[in-house]
């Protein structure tokens, strides 16, 4: 294993990792504004990709128009999920809410199978297959594009959480009752966070399906998303970004070193190890908030 190809794995890994961050960002958005860990983020990503294809193929819209329409559709679906499935659970034990999001994950995945079947369909964004040359390193163009989009989204959400609306969402996540007591419409805030998260899922879904096509395996991005979100600290957008890069690099290097020895699957092993170790060693992640205890 020479140094150049190792560096290449690391560089592409970092870019892939940024695309993991985008999935994690959806989880963080909801957690940061309502303290709900959303296990349906993977299948929301998958659903969004199918919605884009539905607009592009059935309605015959050009791909960028289809993506815009899908963003609007998913915004509404995000609002609907909150309204129908989660609102009545507000204030209930977190385990029930967690199980509800798991139920949604399974429902969306199974539903998509019923409607669209299980064959993989291509999503063509018109990004060329020719690699970019970064010095001696070959970089995948689709990964590079995804990474740039992720960083732009990151910038947007950092600004958003400093805005008045963003402060209100953070307040809701801190204390529902106190938020009600100062006139915050908690329900509306939580609904907005789901809608934004569904929009992020759309963008992640488009980027990932341009790489691997559209099928139910997109929902497995949940594992990457959860690992990155937990490693980054669940309520930290910046944490999700850095944790994504970290996981991507470790995965890239590990798979190029270990795959020949273990015969594949080392990526998922690395994922699982990262998730388990984070929870054991540093449960609040790299940049997550501590629960403040004054002594």
């Amino acid at each position, binding site marked *: 294993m020479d140094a150049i190809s190792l560096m290449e794995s690391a560089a592409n890994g970092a870019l892939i990792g940024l695309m993991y961050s985008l999935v994690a960002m959806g989880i963080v958005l909801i957690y940061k504004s309502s303290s709900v860990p959303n296990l349906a983020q993977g299948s929301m990503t998958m659903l969004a990709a199918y919605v884009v294809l539905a607009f592009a193929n059935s309605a015959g819209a050009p791909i960028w128009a289809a993506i815009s329409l899908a963003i609007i559709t998913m915004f509404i679906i995000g609002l609907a999920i909150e309204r129908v499935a989660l609102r009545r659970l507000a204030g209930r034990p977190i385990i029930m809410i967690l199980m509800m999001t798991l139920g949604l994950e399974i429902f969306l995945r199974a539903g998509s199978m019923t409607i669209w079947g299980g064959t993989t369909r291509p999503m063509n964004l018109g990004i060329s297959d020719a690699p970019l040359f970064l010095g001696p390193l070959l970089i995948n163009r689709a990964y590079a594009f995804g990474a740039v989009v992720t960083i732009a989204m990151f910038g947007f959400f950092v600004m958003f959480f400093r805005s008045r609306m963003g402060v209100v969402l953070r307040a809701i996540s801190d204390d529902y009752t106190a938020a009600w007591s100062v006139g915050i419409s908690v329900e509306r805030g939580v609904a907005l966070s789901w809608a934004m998260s569904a929009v992020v899922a759309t963008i992640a879904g488009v980027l990932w399906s341009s790489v691997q096509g559209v099928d139910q395996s997109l929902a497995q991005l949940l594992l990457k998303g959860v690992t990155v979100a937990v490693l980054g600290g669940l309520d930290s957008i910046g944490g999700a970004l850095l944790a994504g890069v970290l996981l991507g690099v470790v995965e890239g290097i590990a798979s190029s070193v270990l795959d020949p020895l273990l015969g594949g699957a080392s990526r998922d092993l690395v994922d699982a190890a990262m998730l388990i170790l984070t929870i054991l060693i540093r449960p609040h992640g790299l940049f997550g*908030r501590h629960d403040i205890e004054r002594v």
Partner: protein
Amino acid sequence: MNAPIAAKILSLNNIEVVYDHVSLAIKGVSIDVPEGGMVALLGANGAGKSTTLKSISGLLTAERGEVRRGELQFRGQSIGGLMPQDRVKLGIAHVLEGRRVFEHLTPDENLIAASALHSRQDMNRNKDRVYSYFPRLHERRTVASGYLSGGEQQMLAIGRALMTQPKLLMLDEPSLGLAPFLVAEIFQILGRINRDEGLSILLVEQNAIAALEIVSHGYLIESGRIVMHDSAAALKKNPDIQEFYLGGAENKNFRDIKHYSRRKRWLT
């Protein structure tokens, strides 16, 4: 008890609250707060003080409680069916027990979060007003609120409530866990806000001594019922109140204390 017939900002008539459809928390509570007045609701732990406040601010539903009987009126309007944020909009602010500041937000952000219903100009004006009442919050405005001292957090909780431009400020045990000099300072500021702005205040307290110093009128609640109400001066002179809520008569010699406890002369 011939209080002059002033306009009432808040009027509770025979309120009854149940939690989880079964347990009766307060039974037939009636309270009036006059416009611009300052009224205390006194009582021991678990007497139903917080429940009464939550029935007014609408925060009962979050805890699976509901007002089953009685009438809630704010400036003559029935508010029983309104959502919490609509009651805040009308001008009812509830400072929760245990302060409940947004711990991961700075004091400045706490105040911003509480202005969801107001324009940016109103928000900035309200912030200036809160910082002028509580200059210490201004000094600490960039620290995470979870790291503020108990007194500072209480000031922030009150300031946050003031950001909603209330007509009626309800406080749930603002003296809880605070040093006496801080209690005095906070109560003095409350008195000032009441006088300067004509803000009506409903103060819930276990610390009856401190509360009766600043209010004009007090209600005493026990086991979910109002058992007594009178002017603050009259309550302070009442021997039962002195015995049970004001720490007994002065100059008491421990040798003379009876070995049985004094019976309360009201029914609960």
